[in-house]
């Protein structure tokens, strides 16, 4: 269980997040939606230790999480950042090695095998520079790199951004698979609210750095305010099949 209590955080003198309270039970998918600039990435980066906590706390199983980013990763909280941020001049294999930096060689080999099974294209291009991959392939690599760390809690920052429908489906299928088969806890940040809310066990709506609405995913989809603000335009343009429907 990850618990964010009365969290305030931001950059230098600017406070971006105000009094955030979020609970992420083990094995659940928790979704955070919100417009550009609402503070979604700041939230994930605060959890990852990249943005300093001003006050409040983040606890895992009742214990405060460490403050250094690399120690947070060591405690099992892994972020797949916005914009993928793969290492462009490293090969795909080297990117995966970096993802599994803290893993033993044996774990590394098993996980690499898994990543390659999930995304065969990465295996074919193993020794190619990651910067030469297409955007969708880079997202696959970013996900794969995250899997290499063996996360207990996986933080995903807008994984659907700019993806073609096919890759989009593949990425969301993987998220659901990791959650169902591995019992991996997921915090998913999305602008693409329709799909995200469908897969959410619980969801939060962030506006100007505050949680303004929260509730189980299905409830939020029906919520009039959410519909008006986040689903209205999106529903019309979204043609992608819902991954849940796709799987079942």
């Amino acid at each position, binding site marked *: 269980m990850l618990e964010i209590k009365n969290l305030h955080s931001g950059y230098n003198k600017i406070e971006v997040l105000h009094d955030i309270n979020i609970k992420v039970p083990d094995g659940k998918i928790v979704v955070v939606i919100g417009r550009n600039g609402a503070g979604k990435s700041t939230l994930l980066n605060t959890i990852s230790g990249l943005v300093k906590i001003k006050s409040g706390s983040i606890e895992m199983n009742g214990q405060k999480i460490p403050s250094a980013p690399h120690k947070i990763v060591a405690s099992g909280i892994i972020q797949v950042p916005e914009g993928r941020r793969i290492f462009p001049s490293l090969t795909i294999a080297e990117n995966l*090695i970096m993802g599994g930096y803290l893993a033993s060689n044996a774990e590394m080999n098993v996980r690499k095998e898994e990543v390659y099974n999930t995304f065969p294209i990465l295996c074919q291009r193993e020794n190619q520079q990651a910067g030469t991959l297409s955007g969708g392939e880079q997202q696959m690599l970013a996900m794969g790199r995250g899997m290499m760390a063996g996360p207990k809690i996986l933080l995903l920052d807008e994984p659907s951004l700019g993806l073609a429908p096919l890759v989009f489906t593949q990425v969301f299928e993987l998220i659901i698979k990791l959650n169902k088969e591995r019992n991996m806890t997921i915090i998913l940040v999305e602008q693409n609210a329709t799909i995200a809310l469908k897969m959410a066990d619980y969801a939060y709506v962030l506006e100007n750095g505050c949680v303004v609405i929260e509730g189980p995913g299905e409830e939020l989809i029906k919520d009039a305010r959410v519909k008006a603000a986040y689903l209205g335009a999106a529903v019309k343009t979204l043609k992608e099949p819902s991954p849940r429907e796709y799987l079942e």
Partner: protein
Amino acid sequence: MGVPMQFSIILQQVVNGLSLGAVYALIAVGFALIFNVLKFSNFAHGGVLGISAYAGYIAANQFKLPLIPVILVGMVTGAILAVLVELIAFRWIRLQKGQLVYFFVTSVTMLMLLEQVLIIRFGASFESYPYTLVKVRVLQFGDVTISVTYLLSLISTIIAFSGLIYVLKKTKIGIAIRAASNDLTATSLMGINVNMVIIAAFIVSGMLGGLSGVLYGISASLSPQIGQIVVKGFIASVLGGLGSLTGVAVAAVVLGVLEVFLISTIGSGLSPVVIFLLMVVFLLVRPHGFAGVSFSDKA
């Protein structure tokens, strides 16, 4: 006889140029390593190089150590000094999230400080490594005379770069240094302690700097201003397109060969002028350097 004479002179010049270029390559790659990770031009590298050159000199002159231990003394000194510079000067600025210009100014200050240490200790005079350090001074191939100290520079550089390539390609920490060069923040998201990676980069850079200092000292001479050859490393780094270490090394070798030829044709007064002009023209034509590749963001 005229033609073979000329050929042999040219060949000697090529070897001289390559060996000078090799030393420049060591300097430039050590310089570029830090630039790649921390994104500022670390002129303190010259100070590290200078002190290491003198450390090697003391090891040879006072402690009468043979060649290889002398080289090792230079490399170890370079590594320790580079780490101290990072811990004392740069880390603090980083923790304050200081702007790049502070790093730059600090690095120049460190260069002058370290240079001053040498001036205080050794005065403004020139010193040389003991002549006996390299016992056989020249090799004769028919008409061609090759200086062994120059060969030493070449061979040491090749060995050092082989080691460097191995570390950067085959070891986790080496790959992490390259990852950090791409994206320091993303590196920390891999569970990597970026402070350790930065220290590792300074160790590697300092070893290369120490080696270049000793080699330069052996094949030329020592003065407290020796650290200023870091400018050559800087030029080569820029020409090579900082991001690519291979590009930087190639540019440095080209620079060394060019310099030797310019000095023998137009003299040592004009040579730097021509080199700076060439650098400006080259950068106008190829702003990203020889090997400049940049990966654009993909949607």
